[in-house]
């Protein structure tokens, strides 16, 4: 069995599972945020109206809550939703609620690794489609709808059909001007928006061993854009060190067997990956950055669970240091812990000196909800994960998805720019 099959087998008390089997698995962790939380509350209300008594959750210690989509509160309704969410966590005794303005908080998928909320070998579900991100910690991580999350909150279990696994092997290290983002855009371009529908995307090979945990998180984050059920990377010493630095040392790792089966194996040579950009209006619509050098931009956005981890900010700072941006540029670290490290390392000064505005962690602009949305016909280069029509604002705005290196280089020139071409 491969790692995904072994995790699902263990969580369902079976010695062996195969793709296509339906298994009821015990869930180790579940996450809700300020969109899915109120959605779950609505489902609970409907059940109560039908006469079901809901007095306690299956295990409040395994539930955690993020405030990320509409913080800082975008308007009166979102402010009220945060109050509802807070009442919910109090009512059911959920202790891990990362509150805006009270120390560590941030985007849910970033907290999952920054706070080691999920550990290798676990089954983790969340009320958000990018829950896949956390699979880079060697866990089975998948997003669910509100009704399913409500079910898990009450029962601690959920059924899954064991997915087929596609293995993506990266041979050799990525060059310095290339980031994990370029690789995953290339992969999505190759297999398409639904190329991994209901499948697991596993990443392995020497290039992945060489890659940082944060880079791996970029890969698994965007498996959602290929329709994947989950994304995963096998645990190794790099992951153990990463988790130990965040206080987590006790967990039960799972590794694939030597004869693990995959539906298909894709091979990529690290040295052949180019700075890659996804054009509007789909992540599969890729091009090499150099072919888009005539595209004039209005904005550069460096934020989100995909593109505002510490390494993403370091990469952007490397480009922005000593230069000045030509277009409106925003950097929003994905969590307060990352914000603090960026401050300690002097990155924030580099950003401010370059003319960039630095903002608080939020999903706001990435999903076009608030905190810097796009006007009609505006064009943005962004380190985020989606560029469907209107994703970052007006339905006739445009988003190009890119790595932090490409986004920062483009911020300097005002046009889509390969970082190697920056003078």
């Amino acid at each position, binding site marked *: 069995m491969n790692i995904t099959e072994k995790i699902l087998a263990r969580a369902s008390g079976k010695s062996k599972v195969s793709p*296509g089997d*339906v298994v*009821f698995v015990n869930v180790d962790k579940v996450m809700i945020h300020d*969109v*899915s939380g*109120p*959605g779950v*509350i*609505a*489902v609970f*209300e*409907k*059940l109560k109206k*039908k006469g*079901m008594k809901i007095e306690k959750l299956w295990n409040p210690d395994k539930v955690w809550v993020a405030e990320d*989509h*509409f913080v800082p509160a*975008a*308007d009166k*309704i*979102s402010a009220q*939703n945060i109050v*509802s969410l807070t009442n919910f966590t109090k009512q059911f005794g959920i202790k891990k609620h990362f509150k805006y303005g009270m120390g560590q908080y941030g985007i849910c998928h970033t907290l999952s690794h920054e706070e080691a909320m999920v550990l290798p070998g676990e089954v983790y579900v969340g*009320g*958000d*489609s990018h*829950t896949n991100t956390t699979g880079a910690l060697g866990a089975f991580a998948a*997003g*669910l*709808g*509100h*009704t*399913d999350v*409500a*079910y898990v909150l*009450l*029962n601690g279990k959920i*059924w899954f059909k064991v997915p087929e696994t596609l293995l993506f092997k990266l041979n050799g290290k990525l060059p310095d001007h290339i980031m994990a983002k370029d690789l995953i855009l290339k992969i999505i371009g190759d297999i398409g*928006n*639904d190329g991994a*529908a*209901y499948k697991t995307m596993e990443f392995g090979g020497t290039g992945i061993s060489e890659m940082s945990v944060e880079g791996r998180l970029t890969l698994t984050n965007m498996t959602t854009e290929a*329709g994947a*059920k989950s994304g995963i990377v096998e645990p190794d010493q790099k992951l153990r060190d990463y988790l130990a630095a965040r206080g987590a040392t006790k967990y039960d790792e799972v590794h694939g067997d030597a004869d693990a089966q995959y539906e298909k194996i894709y091979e990529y040579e690290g040295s052949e990956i180019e700075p890659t950009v996804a054009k509007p*209006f*789909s992540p599969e619509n890729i091009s090499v950055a150099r072919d888009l050098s005539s595209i004039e931009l209005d904005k550069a956005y460096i934020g989100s669970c995909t593109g505002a981890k510490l390494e993403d900010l370091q990469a952007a700072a490397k480009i922005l240091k000593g230069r000045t941006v030509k277009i409106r540029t925003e950097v929003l670290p994905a969590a307060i812990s990352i914000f603090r490290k960026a401050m300690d390392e002097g990155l924030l000064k580099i950003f401010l000196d370059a003319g960039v505005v630095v903002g608080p962690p939020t999903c706001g602009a990435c*999903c*076009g*909800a608030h905190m810097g949305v796009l006007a009609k016909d505006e064009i943005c280069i962004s380190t985020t994960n*989606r560029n*469907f*029509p*209107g*994703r970052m604002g007006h*339905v006739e705005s445009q988003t190009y998805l890119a790595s932090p290196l490409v986004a920062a280089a483009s911020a300097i020139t005002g046009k889509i720019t390969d970082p190697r071409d920056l003078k």
Partner: protein
Amino acid sequence: MKPFQKIKSIATPLDKVNVDTDQIVPKQFLKLIQRTGFGQFLFYDWRFEREGTPIKNFILNDPKYANSKILLARDNFGCGSSREHAVWALDDYGFKVLVSTSFADIFYNNCFKNGILPIQVSVDVLQKLFSTKSEIEVDLEEQTIKADNISVSFHIEPHWKKILLEGLDDIALTLQHEAEIVKYERSHKI
């Protein structure tokens, strides 16, 4: 949840690929916490001008499709955010059957929780459905789609069929039936 009945209706042909859940229910409506009444926000940014005037050439605003219960769309319908509001809006608007060549996973699962039948068909079948002038009849019991120019069967996982036909979408009911679902699924392996 009401048991799923045979549906006969004119189909609304939405000729778009990669319709993501943010098109189905734009983000500005996610803040609303009630579970009902989302139909008015369905495809909002495609359906209405800023002032709320209907955009004439958008298919849902064509009076011909006013009572349509079947929505046809191209590849990868329901991709993007996992927001269940998308399904709530389709259901509230009146769509009970969705037909596409592929659906995004979380969206697909959310459909069954809310009594909506998503049907995956081949490109050829979808094309025929797009070009039919007649009503389309969807029979879940028989797993068939019929129109004047086509009659085909479709695939659906046995447990999803059971849940829809018996109206078992409720969490409480699903709980009671957990053991049965597993048993049923095991005996109906495809």
